[in-house]
């Protein structure tokens, strides 16, 4: 319904009254802004210091000023000219990409099966998968290592990747999301003549795209920043992943913070890209859910 002129004028007047310039904000608003500001600072400060440190000379790194006295890009030149950095970058890229694809495919396949099929032992399988979430990584590192040693996987991509190719968390997440897909869709597709794998791929997967995007971001970030297991399973410098490689910039005598921070700054770029690619699916998913019904 179109509002009349006078109605519009009246409502614009009340809007103006509501936010008269110069009127002091109330206490609640001030507290809210302060809290948000503090939260924002806590999020941004480490990144700001990372970038700031990467622009400093070694002698000023313990000077906590955010703006370096003599900002320079020597550290970047040094890191990028060091051939090892590229190898680590590529190692990390390969490992994070393969694990992400593998998790998105297999976590959702298992989650879908556990959610939409009734078979004997289904509940036991689900509980078994979930219970692995209760075991901390630190406890698993030794068995993984022994296993890698026995199979000859030490110091290889496969060795770094195998523990993370599927995750209990991802399976659980996908199972929960598939619960929101009505069975009617699946039965309709079954009547339309699709086999079960086609139904999963062409009908169910597109319907949980926001969850897949979230999972992809989690898994990519998790593997991109993984440190302990890659450190343990790799021996040769060429097989290092970025976090492991960056940590090798420090030795017993000296920690080259400016170089570590430079490497870290560069290594955030792919995670930013992955996030930017997938976040729109998450946002769109939320919008779609809002329009439904």
């Amino acid at each position, binding site marked *: 319904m179109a509002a009349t002129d006078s109605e519009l004028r009246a409502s614009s007047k009340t809007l103006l009254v509501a936010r008269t310039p110069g009127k002091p904000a109330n206490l609640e608003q001030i507290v809210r802004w302060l809290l948000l500001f503090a939260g924002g600072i806590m999020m941004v400060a480490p990144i700001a210091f990372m970038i700031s440190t990467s622009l400093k000379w070694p002698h000023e790194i313990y000077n906590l000023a955010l703006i370096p006295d003599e900002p320079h890009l020597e550290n970047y030149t040094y890191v990028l000219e060091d051939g090892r950095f590229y190898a680590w970058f590529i190692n990390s890229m390969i490992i994070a990409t393969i694990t992400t694809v593998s998790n998105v495919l297999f976590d959702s396949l298992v989650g879908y099966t556990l959610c939409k099929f009734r078979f004997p032992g289904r509940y036991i399988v689900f509980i078994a998968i979930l219970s692995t979430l209760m075991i901390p990584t630190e406890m698993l590192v030794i068995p993984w290592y022994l296993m890698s040693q026995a199979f000859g996987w030490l110091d290889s991509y496969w060795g770094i990747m195998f523990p993370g190719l599927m995750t209990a968390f991802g399976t659980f997440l996908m199972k929960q999301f598939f619960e929101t897909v*009505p069975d*009617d*869709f699946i*039965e*309709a*597709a*079954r*009547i*339309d*003549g*699709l086999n079960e794998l086609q139904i999963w791929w062409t*009908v169910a997967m*597109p*319907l949980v*795209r926001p969850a897949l995007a979230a999972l992809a971001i989690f898994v990519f970030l998790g593997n991109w920043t993984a440190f302990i297991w890659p450190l343990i399973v790799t021996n040769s410098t060429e097989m290092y992943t970025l976090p492991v490689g960056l940590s090798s910039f420090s030795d017993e005598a000296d920690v080259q913070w400016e170089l570590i921070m430079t490497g870290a700054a560069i290594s955030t770029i792919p995670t930013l890209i992955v996030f930017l690619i997938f976040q729109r699916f998450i946002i769109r998913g939320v919008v*779609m859910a809002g*329009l*439904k019904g």
Partner: protein
Amino acid sequence: MASLVLRDIVKKFDNTEVLHGLSLSVEDGEFVVFVGPSGCGKSTTLRLIAGLEETTSGEIEIEGRLVNHLEPKDRNIAMVFQNYAIYPHMTVRKNIGFGLRTSKLSKADKKARLEEVAATLDMTELLGRKPSQLSGGQRQRVAIGRAMVRDPAVFLFDEPLSNLDAQLRTQMRLEIKKLHQRVGNTIIFVTHDQVEAMTMADRIVIMKDGYIQQVGTPAEVYHKPANTFVAQFIGAPSMNMLSGEVAGGTVRLGSESEIETDLALEDGRPVLIGVRPEDLYPGGADILVWGQVTVREPLGPETLIYVGTEQGEVIAKADGRNPPEVGEQVKLSAQPESIHFFDTITGEALT
């Protein structure tokens, strides 16, 4: 030729039997509506026909072919679901075309078929849209289109109108009926709404607790209900049930009224007397019951009156212009031919 035959269908979920030996034959091109209260087994029957559930025992034939062990896609059926089940990530064109994915038609034929269906459903200009851009009625039409495009032997509709608002429901009811007249495929339609059943069906199958109560045309189930359940389920408001007793050639109702009957029943046998509210009116000569008007429901052309009688509350229909006042004493009459008799114990109709 019968396009669908059900023979002694039994279905158990774990140890609970939900269908107890269902048999039915549906003629080619017939519009059959399964109706009944929730939990009566009507949707289960539909899912068995579709092949989404397996029968525990019994046979299902579609076009003379035993389909018990065939996959849904091989049964030559199509189904329209209650919440449409159209894929939100696909356009209308893709949704309708989805039913043709596995068909052996050439690409050009598929396209022609798709456009033909879209034209039949009057949604050619909507083909490029996503479901989120469609109204409820349009979504329902897409769902029907996806079923139609395959030209199946039997269409299965699982309460397709229950998600629509009242006005749209009436409109879609008419559209589906017209569509059936045009395309002529066999339709099995499940609903819990007896008005839908009455208005659309060639034949109605009334179910309760996993048993078929009666199969018949809308007129048959309305005028000759097989038992008290059918009598009270079909028609709104429900048929009034009064108790009486056979005495000579008549049925005695309460202390003073008698109904002539040619039923050959032994004296003293208790019977139930059923009269539809629309057959029961104040005034008239064949007085059945009387009492005080407690509530009036004006419907325009007529007014429903609730009358407290010695047999409990009965509903009758009065003229819309000058209905009796609340509190007024009325005598209600019914034509003898509009009165139904049922066995008090079994509830079966006595004829």
